[in-house]
């Protein structure tokens, strides 16, 4: 039993993102309200963004800005060699900037579609919409 706890504790960021992802997926599959589905979709996307952000992190590392990197000190001696372990990995974070833009755009399109669906059926409950479609 302690083994499992230590396994979970060692990789807790992965467990968190998987839990969040499943909450989002559950909302998308099980919820009846179309807005709640969009919320679930947003949680789902955010979970993956968190996953990416967390894999860039390192213990005891700082932001990836090199001080004096372009000054004379840097070239003068090999005294301070840059250790990659001292800095968090910026690449996944930069990738996620793009993914966040995609998220926002998807959300915008989804809301625009929701407005059109509401104008057409005057409800956003999926079962009521399906009932209306079946009546015709």
């Amino acid at each position, binding site marked *: 039993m302690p083994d499992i706890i230590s396994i979970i504790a060692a990789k807790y960021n992965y467990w968190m993102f998987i839990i969040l992802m499943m909450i989002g997926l559950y909302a998308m599959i099980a919820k009846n309200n179309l807005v709640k589905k969009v919320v679930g979709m947003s949680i789902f996307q955010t979970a*993956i963004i968190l996953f990416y952000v967390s*894999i860039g992190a390192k213990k005891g590392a700082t932001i990836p800005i090199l001080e004096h990197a372009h000054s004379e000190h840097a070239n003068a001696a090999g005294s301070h060699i840059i250790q990659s372990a001292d800095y968090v990995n910026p690449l996944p974070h930069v990738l996620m900037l793009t993914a966040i833009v995609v998220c926002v755009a998807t959300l915008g399109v989804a809301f625009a*579609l929701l407005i059109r*669906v509401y104008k057409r059926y005057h409800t956003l409950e999926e079962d009521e919409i399906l009932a209306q479609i079946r009546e015709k």
Partner: protein
Amino acid sequence: MNQQLPAILIIAPLLSALIINISGWVNKKLCFPIAVAGLGLASWASVNLLLRVLDEGVVLYRLGGWDPPMGIAYYVDHLNGLVLTVVSIVALLNLIANKKTIEQDFPEKTGPFYTLYVLMVTGLLGIVATGDAFNLYVLLEIAALTGYGLLAMGEDRAPLATLNYLYMGTIGACFYLLGVGYLYIVTGSLNMVDIAGILPALYQSKAVLAAFMICMIGVWLKMAFFPLHAWLPNAYTYAPSAASSLIAPLVTKVMIYVMIRLILTVFTPEYVFSTLTVSEPIVWLATIAIVMGSIFALSERNLKKMLTYVIIAEVGYMVGGAWLGNRTGMTGAILHIVNDSLMTLCVFLVAGNIVYKVKGYAFKDLKGLFRTMPFTMGAFVIGALSIIGVPPTCGFFSKWYLISGAIQAGHYGFMVALLFSSLVNVVLFFRVIEIAYYEPFAEGHGHNVLPEPMAEAPLMMLVPLLIVAASLIVVGVYTGDIVNYIIQFAIPKEIV
């Protein structure tokens, strides 16, 4: 100039989308020529690229001069050179053919429609050209988001159907992104060729297996592979005809290209077909996809919806062919990407012409169409023969490769499914042809019905359709050359 071709391919439509949007405010008449110019330039670039690839092999383009794996690179080889050409030419022909329908359907919104259209083609071309796994995700979402916009412009149930597509499409793209994240954790790279170089040492890793399966499920969702297909039929049926005849031929086929690219370049055939033992169940899944797609198509009483189920069956053809794991099957799958794009374009353009003239696409609206629209229905017959797989048309040859690949691999279930689907297609299309050819005579007992005057679609819609129909036969005749000079080099030597 020649060195910059891969950049022109993407930038020409991207910039023209911007200019169309601005000029839409000034003068709506400017939008169409700019869109044609942008896509024409892209087609020119892709044809030239393909010729260059045939000449000198793989073309590597470093965006901004940054070397891979740090920078983003575009790799164009025989496989995506071929797909790029098909995508750009299909998009261009469809744009010209649909000028009238776009003006008829959205007289106020032509500017935004052309903008979305050209942006979507940019996304699709980018997906095919790029050699960077994350870049592919971004372009995937560009193509998807513009696609939602185009599909939702349709009538009645279109917004609801598109919303369902948006949920499923987003899950698919997110799964792909997650798979890329796993790959990044184990390899530290996003460049496809670089990843392929690092992976062999990690073939036993569970993380690589997870990455592969998650990527595959994401891509299957996007291509509407059978159990994940539920979003497709309604989204494509209720869409405006200009949008559905762009999206139906291209999006599923581009996603199949992505799957083949992941198998051949990123994970390498050795890993996919030797280390993993999943190809058997996946081919069975493809078999079920073909059978179910055909059966669903049989139950439809509506031309456009029937065609969407035919697409689902065709997706099964290509997934199954790619996963047979032998050279013949893979050749068939790649050839079918080309052929199916053209066939689907042909039949969807016909549906567009019918909607333009008759304002409906249920089977009862098709009565007597052979008399009123002989050229359109002639093209429909050629498209139908090609989907069924009758020899001079191109559909026969890819089906031939797929069936012989199935026999080589000993997958008789897949072979039977292919034959079954051909038979069902015969029923499907001849039912339509019968209604369009004979129905009015049945009502009037063959004597006292006056022949209706010809009411053919305008020439601008007819000429591209006839070009596509002719190309089905031309591609069929030149299949040997396409396989020998292009597809043969697209498949790595490990696959025998």
